[in-house]
């Protein structure tokens, strides 16, 4: 058991983070906290990609300029897989954009309702519905 966990330590961390994020999204009624949970959830996926690109003993995939210029690159050198890093760079940008749109919406919700708690919002909408007559 301990061995299995130690071997897959990175995945254990990722799963815990993922569940923490998802739980925060579901459990809290506060819209900002919900966005925080969403960000944690997304970040755990970034870690999943980054950790899978790790190659044991691998160096960062950056060629030394001098070695490359004189054609002295070591053909047996081991590098980490650069592709997931690049993908996650894109995913981070997407995450930031989502977060900023979400926060902008929270600001507008607070202007319109005067609250960012889910139950207060539901109550306000419900009483509006009653006023209009169901």
């Amino acid at each position, binding site marked *: 058991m301990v061995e299995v966990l130690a071997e897959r330590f990175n995945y254990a961390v990722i799963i815990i983070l993922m569940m923490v994020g998802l739980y925060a999204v579901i459990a809290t009624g506060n819209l900002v906290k919900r966005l925080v949970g*969403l960000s944690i959830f997304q970040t755990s996926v970034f870690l999943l*990609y980054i950790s*899978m690109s790790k190659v044991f003993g691998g160096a960062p995939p950056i060629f030394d300029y001098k070695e490359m210029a004189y054609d002295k690159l070591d053909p047996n050198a081991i590098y980490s897989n650069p592709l997931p890093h690049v993908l996650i760079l894109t*995913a981070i940008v997407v995450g930031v954009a*989502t977060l900023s749109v979400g926060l902008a*919406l929270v600001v507008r919700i607070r202007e319109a309702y005067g609250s960012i708690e889910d139950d207060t919002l539901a109550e306000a909408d419900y009483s509006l519905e009653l006023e209009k007559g169901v």
Partner: protein
Amino acid sequence: MTVGQFLPAALAAHAPVLLVAIPLILSAPAAALKSGRTAWGLAMAGSVAAFLFAIELFLATRGDAPGISYALGNWEPPVGIEFRVDGLNAALLLLLTASAVLALLFALPSVEDEIDKDKRSLFYSAFLVVFAGLAGVATTGDAFNLFVFLEISSIPTYALIAMGAGQDRRALTSSFNYLVMGTIGATFFVIGVGFLYMATGTLNMADLAARLSELHGNRVVEIGFAFILVGLGLKAALFPLHLWLPGAYAYAPSFVTTFLAATATKVAFYGIIRFSFDVFSVENGFVLNSFTYVITPLAIAGMIIASAQALFQSDVRRLLAYSSVAQVGYMMLGLGIGTQAGVAAGVLHLINHAMMKGALFMALGAFAISYGVRRIENFKGLGQALPVTSAAFTLGALSLIGVPFTVGFVSKFYLIQAALQKGWAFAVVAILISSVLAVFYCYRVLVNLWVAPRPDGASRSVQRVPYMILGPLLVLALMNLVFGVYAEPIVNMAETAAAAAFNAGVAP
């Protein structure tokens, strides 16, 4: 390239990428403009250009013609990002771009009615980004690129839905809920793609398909598939994951609802077809089992429960939104059947549903402009006041029920046929129950529209329905009728699409 090409060769060679790039590039000047009308012109130009490219691509991939592969930036696939167009997504692109053009005609008067003057150009700019994103999802042949386009289309969608706040502040909370759920869905999709990359080391869909065929029974691949299915299912509003949809459709501006109802869930649904039948394959026992034992029961539950929920709505747009969830159930049932005939029926219903919901939501937009009404009881007697709009609405509603000589009948007919071929009598029963429920909820609206007298002291017409709305509305409504009688073109389109989904992935 084959017969039927009408664009110059220099343009046609780059059609797959221009289709996405032109709207995306036009969105920047549209945002910088002051005048909403000029921005509308740009949006229209972008959509019409995309429509022309879509026709070109559709003609080039008709019949047995092989799919078109486009290497972005001349980086050869599988290393570079590939745009791939075959029978399946050519049909979807045609639907998407045609809906965009028709919806934009409707947009000009509708947006002037609902959106503040200084926000209109930004509104059209956001629309162009959504449109480019959806077109990108439909054309790309790269799994991670699909995620990026999915989010490019989703993020401005949240903003567009929130624009409905000028009419009803609940648009804000609905948009927020959609944002949270949509992001979870997209993230699930990325997790799934990550697992596939772990197992295969590639992101190109054709390459994935070839390598996955050797990985039968691999647990990592199966988990990846499950994550992708759930993620795209959330975006497609598959039954238990549909909670964002009614609010978003009910409170968004009329134009946004019309466009989204005709396109957004359809594109996610296309993603499911692409991954389940092209990248993975139904011969894979895991995929087939998850369709038979997970998707089919959910589809049937969605068809019946969402239709029943629609019965109890007092807001007509909410009613139609719940009906949309039920219609997604029909499409999913087509996939659940898991045969080529089933997928063809699913794609056929996808095309037809875009026509009927497009007409219905556009008619609701017309009612909202001229009388400012949304609730069922306020529809009393409007049939006499607005006969043409009401007739168009009625055509859409009849098509939704599946009355013979409408497109709704055609797709239900093919769906039932596919279910019977598989020997699934229970699916046929479910389709019939859901159709009966559709009769009831459509009846509630139609009886108020045509039979009930206009009450004394009811609000007077604010303005007459502009021709810019009547034109596309009539086109959509009559399409329901024309293709219902003369169904061959759309049936062919759906069958080519299903054949492409089943046969394309194996050989590059």
